[in-house]
């Protein structure tokens, strides 16, 4: 049967893999390709490489990083996010080894482009990313570049051409980096019931992950900072995720 997915999220800033806290404070981690290679060995179901400063600086996707990662010959599906402005960017990122593309800034700047991306890559390859927070019981969508927020109702959603994407990632940006702080009301408040959701931001403990992954419209959960505090962090989470259909923890044994 189809499994729920545990995604290893690698936040990249100025070429460095970093820990991110509430979209505003960062701590240095290391080289993205070494972090990604490690998540591949740990058996993450997918790896999301999220370059958070590409759109702000208008540099487009970090193709060099994708090339360095492809050269590692890893065999875990990779989602690339960061600076994808148009169809050409998306196709080139896929050619360089990304399996799926996630967009955020494009939803504000050029949402119609999603139709072209879908025609090129198929909407199963596309994910929309919405940083959200809850105020007075409602979801607010944040433009991380300028801090602007708008109510995430059907009107706002209709302007995003989400019919061309297969999945939506909701990030509880306020609680990002705070262990166990993800606001579990977020997936329940999202207006499009049947859109498969990926959740991120403050998800750390297995019990909490188990609860959100048991919601039927939630297909994946992303973990970022908390994967870097212990060895075999992915496997430890999987081991404790009882009752969730997920690939079992895998401990590689290199028979040389």
């Amino acid at each position, binding site marked *: *049967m*189809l499994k729920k997915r545990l995604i290893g999220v690698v936040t990249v800033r100025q070429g460095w893999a970093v820990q991110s806290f509430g979209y505003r404070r960062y701590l240095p981690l290391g080289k993205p390709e070494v972090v990604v290679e490690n998540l591949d060995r740990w058996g993450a179901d997918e790896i999301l490489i999220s370059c958070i400063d590409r759109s702000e600086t208008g540099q487009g996707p970090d193709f060099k990083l994708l090339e360095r990662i492809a050269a590692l*010959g890893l*065999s875990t*599906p990779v989602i690339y996010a960061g600076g994808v402005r148009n169809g050409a960017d998306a196709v080139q990122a896929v*050619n360089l080894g990304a399996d799926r593309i996630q967009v955020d800034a494009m939803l504000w700047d050029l949402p119609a482009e999603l139709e072209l991306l879908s025609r090129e*890559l198929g*909407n199963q390859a596309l994910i929309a990313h919405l940083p959200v927070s809850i105020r007075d019981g409602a979801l607010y969508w944040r433009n991380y570049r300028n801090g602007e927020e708008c109510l995430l109702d059907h009107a706002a959603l209709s302007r995003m051409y989400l019919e061309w994407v297969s999945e939506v990632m909701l990030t509880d940006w306020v609680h990002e980096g705070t262990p166990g702080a993800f606001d579990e009301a977020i997936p329940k408040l999202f207006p499009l019931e049947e859109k498969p959701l990926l959740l991120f931001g403050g998800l750390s403990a297995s019990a909490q992950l188990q609860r959100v992954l048991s919601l039927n419209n939630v297909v994946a959960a992303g973990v970022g900072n908390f994967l870097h505090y212990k060895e075999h962090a992915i496997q430890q989470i999987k081991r404790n995720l009882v009752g969730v259909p997920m690939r079992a923890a895998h401990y590689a044994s290199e028979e040389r």
Partner: protein
Amino acid sequence: MTRRTIGIVDYGVGNHASVLRAFQSLGYRCRVSRDPSVLAECDVLVLPGVGAYPTAMSALTACELVGFLQERARGGQPIIGLCLGMQLLADVSHEHGVTAGLGLIPGEVVPLTTVPWHIGWNTIEVVNGDDLLAPSDQQSVYFNHSYVFRAPEEYQVCVSRLDRSFTVGVRRGKVVGLQFHPEKSQSVGRVMLRNLVEGLTRA
């Protein structure tokens, strides 16, 4: 020790990088090419593929590879189609209108019925007792597609299941098609690719 050579068909669409690295990490010599003479010398041909069916078929035609691939298949050359590459083996596809495929394995490509796409890790069940895929029965592999290859029962080698089962693996002689991404299915995928190449190239 002569290492097997894998010819990855380059028709300008799809993720060569990952497929190339996967076979290289298994120790195989690889060629990424659209030149029939180069591809003809390879032990196994691989059709990668991410993206839209019509774009892929027009690219194959433009590179004059359609006839070449059909002739090689008739001649018994092992061919492995991955994801979109599998669908290209079919007679026809209904993605974005109707497009003729390579016709190497009977069947047509149609959209998934009950759900719009099949994304993520799912178990496969090997059917018709296929010897090469048997060791991978009941293992989880990575899917990322919204169309499916509906093939006659005798050409199905493995199926997967959402609310009901559908074909995710076809084979006719030495031509094999897999709907999922073994190059992105970690150790399970590596074992499967090795079994396929070794099995298909055994005399």
